[in-house]
């Protein structure tokens, strides 16, 4: 029998991995109802407010977000100017933005505000392996943002 805390963790992981499409089934809701109210807030499972419980998992902590775009997953192919500005707008409002820079790109350190609120990775997009990674990321994303046509 799952203890209340484990149950919450399982639900959180399911919610996190399913993203915007997670809707707890009636079974989950019934199970949640059986857990003493003192141990858990049922609302924290069916809502997106994952911050209601202390995240114990690094991934859950990173993905806990708030703002209107909480749960939105954006993949940003790094550009300059308008692209990062849009990524900033989306990330600021709670979207989970993964920014993909080309391998060897320099980090701007902490100096460029438009790069905040991201998780960053570098990939050599000339390799098929990297392209495959991007396609796998796309499968679990809501938005692909690119401004590669701009210089």
């Amino acid at each position, binding site marked *: 029998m799952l203890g209340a805390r484990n149950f919450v963790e399982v639900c959180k992981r399911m919610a996190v991995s399913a993203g915007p499409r997670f809707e707890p089934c009636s079974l989950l809701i019934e199970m949640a109802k059986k857990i003493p109210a003192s141990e858990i807030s049922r609302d924290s499972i069916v809502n997106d407010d994952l911050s209601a419980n202390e995240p114990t998992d690094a991934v859950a902590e990173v993905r806990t977000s708030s*703002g*209107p775009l909480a749960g939105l997953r954006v993949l940003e192919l790094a550009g300059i100017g308008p692209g990062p*500005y849009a990524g900033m707008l989306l990330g600021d409002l709670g979207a989970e933005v993964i920014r993909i820079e080309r391998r060897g790109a320099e980090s701007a350190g902490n*100096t*460029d*505000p*438009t790069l905040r609120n991201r998780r960053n990775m570098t990939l050599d997009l000339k390799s098929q392996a990297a392209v495959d990674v991007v396609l796998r990321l796309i499968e679990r994303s809501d938005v692909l943002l690119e401004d590669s046509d701009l210089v």
Partner: protein
Amino acid sequence: MTERLGLGPEICCQRNPRLIYARITGWGQDGPLSRTAGHDINYIALTGLLHQIGDKQGRPVPPLNVIGDYGGGGLMVAFGIVCALFERARSGRGQVVDSAMIDSVISFTAPLMGLRNQGYWIDRPAANFLSGAAHYYDTYETRDGKWLAVGAIEPQFHQLLLERLGLDPAEFALGVGFQQGLYSELVEDVWPALRSKLAAAIRRYSRAELEAMFDGSDACVSPILSMQEALEHPHNVARKAFIEIDGVAQNAPVPRFSRSRPKHPQAPRAVDANTLEILKELGLSTAQIEHVLTAR
């Protein structure tokens, strides 16, 4: 203001909990200036942005009312509304979207903060490589008194620019990009000298000759078109960037969607063209409609 009419957020959102109540202000809903009058030029004046846009003599120049009213105002609130709609799809509830022009225009300074933090910055008009300090990102007068936009930031485009004008790349080498040597030296010494050379070269030709010279190239050179000329430019014509509604030329809807294409826009109607029709749609009786139309 809507609060005074009895149409503030509390009342409206209670009436419809799914409502997205979107508010645009210049100064914001609170703060020392929130109850004072202002216009675009005032809001952008307090953001640090207007200070950067101006002539070489150091005078800030009003960029029309595009940055505050339409960029920071209209566009940002439209975006905020859509964000709230996304959230509502998950929560079932509306909320207030509070879009202050001054906040939004401050957000436009985010990339500039990056440059400033990295030292590529002098705090006055036309001292930024994107505000006219650099010879390669500026406007130039043609022989026939028209204007050219040059935006050849990257070395390969800069090279093409020089080649087509018959200028010697060696003379321009130190002024490519914005990271060579001391930034202040670029702004005070290097770029002004290069601007003179580039200006002299461009001034030899009419705008039409320059358009032909750079046609199809990556030199990042463009004619600066008047509104009438913009309507007629081949690129805009080919893309139908302008449409006509009842004979009036105007911008096409933006942005473009691959599946969800809107209909051709309706021309603006008279202010009261649909009053009766809408009151009837609401289910008001003739007597109620009469009352609405005549009540004081």
